[in-house]
């Protein structure tokens, strides 16, 4: 089992208007971690708004683009194929098990994600292709920036669960989770230490034929 070690919690500011804000800094052994998905969960969290149009997760240059797509629960995602070769996108993740057999162009039906969780995407034709769809049932989430910092604002005070997930966490990992009561002390900041795996090689191998 992958063990989690929580290192420190720092500061969450409480805003003047009665809503609280949370600032989280995500690091690993090498320093700040970018693109970690930081989210707050709890019974009092409202369902996120689902847009009418579907999200796009295209395949470009034999990669999934974007690598990590964060969507609200109930949203649909289209998988437009921008490459000249066909792809066979699949997921065996419990959150959403699907496949779109060999196709080109944009499949007719987008895929709707009704269960919160992380969905790993692969292509049965191109094994190196890896993509993630993070299905959140909370509107309060943010991505860490280059300095590893992510902030959430306008959160009503109360009890929550702070979750941090990153694509380089081990397969099947639920992510970093910790209860959090808002507001935090004035200068309290939260620093999350993740144990991440090396970045997977997502570069397509040189195939010898044009792409």
């Amino acid at each position: 089992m992958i063990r989690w070690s929580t290192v420190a919690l720092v500061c969450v500011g409480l805003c003047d208007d009665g809503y609280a804000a949370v600032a989280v800094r995500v690091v690993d052994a090498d320093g700040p971690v970018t693109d970690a998905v930081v989210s707050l969960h709890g019974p009092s969290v409202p369902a996120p708004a689902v847009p009418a149009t579907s999200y796009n997760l295209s395949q470009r240059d034999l990669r999934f683009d974007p690598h990590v797509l964060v969507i609200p629960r109930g949203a649909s995602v289209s998988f437009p194929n921008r490459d000249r070769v066909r792809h066979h996108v699949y997921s065996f993740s419990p959150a959403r098990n699907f496949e779109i057999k060999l196709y080109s162009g944009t499949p007719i039906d987008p895929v709707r994600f009704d269960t919160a969780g992380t969905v790993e995407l692969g292509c049965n034709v191109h094994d190196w292709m890896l993509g993630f769809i993070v299905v959140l049932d909370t509107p309060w989430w943010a991505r860490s920036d280059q300095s590893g910092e992510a902030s959430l604002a306008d959160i009503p005070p109360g009890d929550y669960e702070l979750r941090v997930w990153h694509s380089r966490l081990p397969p099947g990992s639920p992510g970093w989770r910790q209860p959090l009561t808002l507001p935090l002390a004035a200068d309290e900041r939260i620093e999350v230490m993740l144990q991440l795996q090396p970045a997977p090689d997502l570069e397509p191998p040189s195939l010898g034929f044009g792409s």
Partner: protein
Amino acid sequence: MTAPSFGARLTLAICLLVLATQALSWWAVDAKLREAAVSEAESRLRSAAMVAQRVIEFRGQRLLQGVEVLAADYGFRAALASGDAATMRSAFANHRQRIGADLLWVLDIDGAPVLDQEESTPALIESLLVRQQSHPRGSHKRAWRNLPHQFVIAPIMAPRRIGWVVAGFEIDRELALELKQLTGSDLAFRVPVDALDDGEYTAAEPGSSLAAADTAALIDAPTNGQSMRRWQLSGGAFLAASQSLDQVRMDVLLNEDELYRELRRLRTELGLLALLALAGSVLVAMWLARTVTRPLQRLAAAASRIGQGDYAHGFSLSGRNGSSRQDEIGALANTLEEMRGGIQAREETIAHQAFHDALTGLPNRARALEFLREALERGGEGELGPALLLMDLDRFKDINDTLGHPVGDEVLVRVATRLGAVLQTDFESAIVARLGGDEFLIVLPASDAGQAERLAASLLASLGEALELPQMQLMLDASIGIAVAPVDGTTPASLLSRADIALYDAKQGGARWQRYRPGRDAQQGERLALANDLRLALARDEISLRFQPKLDLRSGQCSHAEALLRWQHPRLGNISPELFIPIAEQTGRITELTRWVLRRSLEQLRQWQQEGFTLGVAVNLSPHDLYDIELPGFLAELLEEFGTEPALLVLEMTEGAVMRDANQGVQMLHRLKALGVRLAIDDFGTGHSSLAYLKRLPVDELKIDKSFVLALTSDGDDAVIVRSTIQLGHNMGLKVVAEGVESEQVLAQLRSYGCDHAQGFLISRPVHAAQLRDWLRLQQPAPARKAHAR
């Protein structure tokens, strides 16, 4: 114990050397071969191990690919993702069959079995997964149920890894046999004790190409180390090298019999070659030894011949081209040959000296006796035996004494030449030898007495001619004694002794040669004893004088007394002068005897004169005395000593004595005559001297031999001889004495012939001086004696 021959030792040494060389090289080559075999075995084992390892790894890759295909199979993954156990199980069996795995496990991301599959061992799985991290696409060799297995692991990606597919394949006999076909070596795969799993399973037969029993034996074999080792298994001895493949031990084995078959074949061939070489070298060694020892043996044989006195055969060792050898042995042979030649030459010289007389070059006594012995042996059965002629020169001692030894030697050489000439002409088979002094021996190999006597005559005739010497002419005379085998003797000694006796007899008898007369040797023996006794006789007073009166027929008075020797031998009694005088002459004692007689006679004469008797004394001289040049001087002193009137002494000698060497004899007679003594020829008539010759002699008397006188009255011839001799003597102015007068008739006859004196038994026997004195008293009245006494 005799030492082995040089040749044998040489052969042995060479053989041993070759044997040692062979053994050494055999040993060295064998060691090299063995080393090569071992190195070959190591190399084969190494390459077999490498091949086996490659094959196994290749199989692993093949298996891995199969498993990877399975892990990547979308259906399989879908089935796995479905979570439906029945679906999963069926898909599972399908794929397991497809890749031919003995074991197939699907594990989740944590390594836990997804299905309740055949039992997997958590420890095994964990160790496999750990190793998988360092060998991502490797194959892992582990024990499963105590049997060696090859495991491959493929991750299940969806798309990230969600689990593992683990496939296990037994490393079994089938694989081992397959590998054996490839590598030619036996292989065994086994699980070391420390790698065994939990012990729930008992050790089973590992995968092996060996027989079951050998395989089972391998279970307990040590596993540590990688170096080659030797295992004795029931299938034979094996050379084995072991290698670890992960946790499985791979043993590569080579059957030693198979491995060493070639070595054994080589070794056999090598041994045969060594034997051949040994046999060849034995032959060569024997040949070599023979080439060395054969000439040595020949040299030894030649040296042995020389040692036995056979110098006649020269020899040389021929080389290959027929010329004499040039090497050391050739040099030795040449040296030996030179030595042989030298010895031969020296021995011939020595033999010649040993068997020849240095002066005359004639064979010597030894050679002559040898020749005689050979002749005796040859003629042993025939009628004719060898004959011996023993010759000596008359009066040779006088030649030496008077003319000197050089002349004597010259005489001997001339005589030898003449004798040789005679033999060469008529008696080629005979030899003449010089025995010493003036003695020559002639041996006729096969002869009868007649032939021997003819030869004697020829020899003596050859000496008849005068010998022309630088200083003078010399007349030689010689006597010969003859002995003829087998009548006269059958041994060289007896023949020689009897020839000697015959020679003596010839000289005594006045004959020129004389055949041996049977029985003479006994007398001769007696003579020798007497000669010995004679030496002492004078000192022992055994010899005395008798006197026989000589009657003057005119006056009737005794004019002289002849002194006669008597020898009273203590054992033999009275010994006749006729017997011992010759002995005295031969032994050189006659001179001493004569002087003794002269002294005693003159002594007696003086006594008679003192007693008043008037008479002279007559003394006989031996022929030898005529060569006693000191005799006149001695006699003069003696006459002086006794104051004897010389005319009273009459010296008598036979005509033979004078005639033997006329010159010397006459000369001596004159010297004696000069002393004033009277000289008489004794035994006149028996010799051969001529009256004319007699006339030249300064003698005063003739004594007619008694052989004529004894039968004077009965034999007319003798009477004529006696009467004419008396007349002759008177005509030459000599007095004549008749000896042997034993009867009155004879005496009367002599008187009628006018003979001057008579002597004989009729008048008186020889008597002692004392008896004579009595006799004289009867004859001569005292006044007459007184008148003479003075």
